């Protein structure tokens, strides 16, 4: 069974169609990198997966659960699909450790001690074992984003969604975040990554999706698409992001 399955999914904001009949299946273990010009619908598509946006038409199943189900279904989907945001969105009143403990305690009902073990191990994993008691404002952007990744992982998702995770970061801070994401991919995590990082797409992506005007235009192996752009539009886009 696919982890994520779009069938003829459309999304409308008012009279503006942001997604136009998307068909897409993502299997467990895949690392799907989504690229495309701004306004092409890639973030909206990602946000539909964990129901931060409601799809207007079509069906979308996440781990077999419909995004149009009850509010309980929606919460189940969100427990399975972790989300990492462009702006990190760490809770500013909690330390790094408390941010990562938050999900296990509040969403999974774990005890404080259990949550602390999970959180400490994950912060260690993203290279922030020394920074656990810092507040978000005391961390660099790259560190904040790594805490945010740990926070999502702590809930125990089967799928991770990344919405331009490095776009708000200085170039020298991007690598530390991309490295963490690469490690996750190597461990077999299913990932959908909206990004402009073509190096990451080539190195880590198992699949490259090009969106334009709310449609999924190309879908293939990153190496194939990048070495031999199948359309002028795509070739043009690649020229502009380098």
């Amino acid at each position, binding site marked *: 069974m696919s982890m994520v399955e779009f069938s003829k999914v459309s999304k409308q904001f008012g009279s503006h169609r942001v997604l136009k009949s998307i068909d897409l299946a993502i299997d467990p273990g895949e690392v799907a990198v989504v690229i495309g010009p701004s306004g092409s619908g890639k973030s909206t598509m990602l946000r539909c997966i964990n129901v931060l946006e409601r799809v207007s038409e079509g069906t979308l199943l996440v781990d077999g659960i419909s995004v149009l189900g009850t509010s309980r279904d929606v*919460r189940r989907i969100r427990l399975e699909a972790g989300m990492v945001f462009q702006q990190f*969105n760490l809770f500013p009143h909690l330390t790094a450790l408390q941010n990562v403990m938050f999900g296990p305690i509040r*969403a999974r009902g774990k005890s404080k001690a259990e949550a602390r073990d999970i959180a400490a191990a994950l912060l260690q994993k993203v290279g922030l074992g020394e920074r656990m008691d810092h507040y978000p404002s005391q961390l660099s952007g790259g560190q904040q984003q790594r805490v945010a990744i740990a926070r999502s992982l702590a809930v125990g998702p089967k799928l991770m969604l990344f919405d331009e995770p490095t776009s708000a970061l200085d170039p020298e801070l991007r690598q530390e975040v991309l490295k963490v994401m690469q490690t996750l991919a190597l461990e077999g995590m299913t990932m959908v990554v909206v990004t402009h990082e073509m190096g990451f797409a080539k190195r880590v992506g198992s699949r490259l999706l090009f969106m334009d005007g709310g449609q999924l235009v190309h879908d293939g192996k990153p190496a194939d698409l990048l070495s031999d752009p199948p359309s002028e539009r795509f070739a043009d886009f690649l020229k502009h992001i380098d």
Partner: protein
Amino acid sequence: MTFDWTAVFDALPELLQGLEVTMLIALAGLAGGVVVGAITGALLTYGGWLAQVPAQLYVALIRGTPITVQVMFIYFALPILIDVRISAASAGILTLIINSGAYNAEIVRGALESVPAGLREAGLAMGLSFRKVLVHVISPIAVRRALPAMGNQLVSVVKDTSIFLVIGVGELTRRGQEIMSGNFRAVEIWTAVAVIYLIVISILAVSLRFVERAARLP
């Protein structure tokens, strides 16, 4: 004229009794006003129109009328309208709760709306219900943002208790007026009354500053 200190000392025990009444009314009004304000503010921000419209009407009604008229209405008109008789002090407390609740509601709404939408999404995206997100993510931040404005409102509540002299509540200002009408030492008595208010409110203001500082995020 000479400032007669004995008039102040003679009046002091009675003025302090008045202060006690003032503080009791103010504290009850504060506590109630914060609760009413928090609930109304949340309804104004997140409620459907069925909750929003009454909340907006309530805020408009209270902000659009003087507190003196409000307390007169509650103390003198309500007994006629619905046949409930309450003591002057209770009428004062009720007025403060209703009045400061409306102002607090607007402060709370502003604070809730100022919390970045991304934090709410981050909470929801983890599978939390909106209620949990409100309690554990939005509120801790909103409370910190509301503190300065709330502090102003709390100070107003203490001073607003002086209005209840119009319905005969024996609070600080009323006691001062009664003493003054017996000994005609207007300068001494009103100075003493003013200084007592000033001291109490300064203590409140300094404590609020401490709370703000303790709650401040790094």
